[in-house]
Every structure is written in C-alpha cells, then in structure tokens.
C-alpha cells in the first residue's frame, strides 16, 4: 500500500504530470482563445502588442532621449522586449495560477504543479507567433539573415525551462504571502532596467565596478545571448554558463519548494 503522506518521487510526480498533458493543451488553447475573444483584432494582438511596445520605446529612448545605442536600435529593442516579456509574463501567470484555479484545487486531486506548468506553457504558446516579429524587424532594418539566427530557438527552449522554475517559485511565494503579487510588477520594472532591455549596458557600465551585477542577472544574460544570435558581435560563453547555471538552480529550487507546499494550495 501507499502512504498518502509520503510524497511520490520526482519520477512518479513527473509521470503523473505527463499523464495530464491533455489538460495542458486543452487549458492553454481555450485560455488563449478566450483571451482574445472580446477584442476586435483578436489574435492579431499577439503580434501588435510587441510591435507597439517596440514603437513606444523606440520613440522615447531612441529619438527623444537619444540613448547611446548600437548600430541597429530597432532590432536591438525588438529582441530585448521579446525575451524580457517572455519571462515576465510566464512568472506573473505562474503567480496567478494557484489563485485563479481555487475551484479546481478544492474539487479534485491532481499534482498541483499542473497549474503553474500549464500557465507557463500557455505563455510559451502565446509567444511563438511574436518570434516572427524579431526576424521581420531584423530583416526590415537591414540585417542579413544567417544560420546564426536559428540559434535563437534553442536559447528560447532553455529560457522556457528557466520560466518553469520562475513560475513554480512565484506560485509558491504568492500562495504563502499574497502581498508578493503586488511586488512582482516592481521587481520586473527593476529587472527591465537591470537587464539592458532598452539600452546597451556595456556602453554605460563597461569598466565600472558594478558591471558584474548585470552579468549575474540571468535576464541580462539571455537578452544579450539572444541579441548575439540576430545582431552578431562577440559571443559570450561566460553569459551562457551563468544563464544555464541559473536555469538549473531555479528550476530545481522551484520544483522542490513548490512540491513542499503541495497539500496547502487552494486553501486559506
């Protein structure tokens, strides 16, 4: 017989999540459909939203403030905003996944990680189409396509694993202390500036004592690496190593910490 209070091993837990893959697909598809159902332009918003963001930041930072920018600020911004937004949306959705599904949590028994995992996959599916925006912007702004552009795809897959870890951590954190959901937007605002999404950090921080702060920031690492695939420049193996380290650490921590609260989700 099984002891219900001894949690299943990670392999058994992953298997029970895998058995519920139909839930992930169905829930993600219906969530994405209902999200756009009420607007006139519907699914076009998945493309328009990043384009408008790029436009706004281009006007403010590129034209009005005229920040010290690289050669192709348009493509520079489009990669930064896209990569940053991917992690930001996944984390915030993960934080909301427990509170949004209280009814399901209280009604049925299932591995609780199903909810943050599904919300992360939903955001990943919403993100597939905007990848094209990056390539379109890069082409339109005069970059020459190369095979190196395709390296963005494996990088995004690693980022997806990072996002799972961030979503699991945020889900546990907000379900223990509700106030954290109020803090998340500010944390991401800070990260937006600390990750060099809008300006080239190297031009400001190079040689200064605080440059290491940026290099230890995982989002700065993935933003810079993604830019390298499209815009070229120097390949930074150290940033890749730091990002992989963060990905392993955060997803392991997120899984262990989330599972430690398995019995308590959905209750107040």
């Amino acid at each position, binding site marked *: 017989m099984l*002891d219900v209070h001894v949690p299943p091993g990670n392999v058994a837990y992953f298997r029970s999540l895998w058995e519920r893959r139909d839930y992930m697909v169905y829930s993600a598809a219906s969530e994405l459909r209902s999200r756009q159902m009420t607007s006139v332009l519907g699914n076009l918003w998945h493309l328009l939203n990043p384009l408008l963001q790029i436009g706004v930041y281009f006007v403010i930072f590129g034209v009005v403030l005229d920040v010290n920018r690289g050669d192709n600020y348009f493509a520079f911004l489009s990669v930064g905003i896209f990569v940053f937004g991917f992690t930001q949306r996944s984390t915030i959705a993960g934080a909301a996944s427990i509170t949004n599904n209280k009814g399901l949590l209280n009604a049925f028994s299932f591995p609780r990680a199903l909810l943050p995992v599904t919300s992360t996959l939903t955001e990943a599916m919403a993100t597939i189409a905007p990848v094209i925006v990056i390539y379109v912007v890069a082409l339109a702004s005069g970059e020459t396509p190369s095979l190196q552009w395709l390296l963005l795809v494996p990088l995004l897959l690693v980022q997806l694993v990072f996002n799972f870890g961030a979503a699991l951590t945020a889900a546990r954190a907000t379900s223990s202390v509700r106030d954290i959901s109020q803090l998340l937007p500010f944390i991401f605002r800070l990260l937006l500036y600390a990750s060099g999404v809008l300006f080239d950090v190297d031009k400001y921080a190079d040689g200064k004592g605080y440059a290491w702060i940026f290099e230890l920031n995982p989002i700065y690492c993935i933003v810079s690496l993604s830019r390298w695939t499209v815009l070229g420049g120097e390949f930074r193996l150290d940033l890749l190593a730091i990002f992989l380290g963060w990905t392993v650490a955060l997803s392991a921590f997120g899984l262990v910490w989330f599972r430690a609260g398995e*019995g308590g989700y959905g209750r107040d």
Partner: protein
Amino acid sequence: MAVTDAISQPTDPTTPRLTIAVRDLDVTYRVYEQPVLNARELATRGFRSRVSTSVEAIRSVTLDFWAGEAVGLVGSNGSGKSTLLRTIAGLQPKSGGHVFVTSQPQFLGVAAALKPRVSGYRNVYLGGLAIGLDKDEVTDRMDEVVEFSGLGDSMARPLNTYSSGMRARLAFSIATLRTPEILLLDEALAVGDRAFRERSIAKINEIRRDANTILLVSHNLNEIRQTCNRAVWLNQGVVERLGEVDEVLDAYEAWSDSKGR
C-alpha cells in the same frame, strides 16, 4: 510512494481486500485568533503575542476500509469528519500516525466551484483532464455527463450563473467520470435536488459493487442508510462507535436527540 510491509494483504482471494488503513492518526491544527498576517498587528504586538490555540481535530484514530464497501462518517459539527476525509485524501497534513491507501483517493468537496467564468462543457473537460482522463475519453462520455447531471442547456452557460446545487451536480458527475478506486465525498451531494440525489445514490451503489471504496461525510442520515454498509461516528476527534450502519446511526440519533433536548 513508499511501499510498506506494515499492512499485509490477505492472500486468500475470498477475504475482502483492504483499501484504506488509518493507523493511530493524529491531526492538530494551529488556529490563530487573528488569522491574517497584518503588518500593524505585527509591529504593535510582535510575532510572539499572536494568540493561537492548537485544536486536536483527530486523536489516534485507527480504521480499516475494504474494497466493495461504502462507509458513512457521522458526527456533530466540528467532530473531525471533514478533517479525517481530507487527511485520508492527503490534502490535510497529519501530525502523527499513518494513512495507507491502495491508490490515490479522489476527493470531492462541498459544492465545488470549479472554473466560474467558463461554460459547463469546458469545465467537464478541464476537470476530467485534470483528474487524468484523456480528451477523447471525456468527449465520448460528454452525453453521459449531461444526462447524469441533468443540466441540459445550462451546460453552455458559464458556471457563475449556476446555483450551488447545479455546481455540485456537475462536480459529482466529473469526479465519477473515471470510476475511482477510492472516492471520498464531503457533503458533495447535500445541495443536489431530490432527483439528482436518487441518481447519485444509484451511482454510489454501482461504484461500490465494482469493488471500490467510498467514504461519505453527510448530515443526511437517510443518504447514508441508502448507500452505506458501515458507519463511523466521530465525536471530538475520536471514534465513538464503528459498525453496521443501522446500529451506529441509531446510537448517534439517540445521542443527538438527548443532546438536543
């Protein structure tokens, strides 16, 4: 999950199979007088002075449940019935003892709200897929769910337009989509109407006949008499009486009548 030798199964096929073994179970809650963590409170009174009491909801309960039986859990409010059921489901942490089961129990709570802004149909998919069915299975059995829940055209409406009885009917229909080996019902039928209650009682009896185990918390003693073969009477976290359903319920009724007077 850990396989244990602590409970040995009978090898003789004619003896019934043990499906739930509760051993010396203790559940203790810590209840704070001011349950909300509030900065002003913390600043003025500090962490230490928060008034808390521990409630011993379940005290060294040992029970065995077998395949093919339905057992009713009765007792006054606060006697620990729901806590016991949630602890068997693994949803409530225990403070001592053990709960062994043959497979993960399916727990169904009071008038479950599911996903409020989504239609009945979508809720059947989401709920069914969450408990581990695949999409084709749910599609194949959708007609059955609509018929059994008696919701008809309401299935296309979002759940926040449903009454609590309608929600309970839908949730019960979803939880029984796949016949669970162990089904735990916490007042799950209480708000359903009479016609639905009759259907669900028939369903429970059917599940029981298929050699599964059902535990039922209910204040409706007739419901328990119609479905259960045994009953457990809990009083202040302790098993007051355990045995044949009529015997236990008669004793419980006599006791609550004498208290009410």
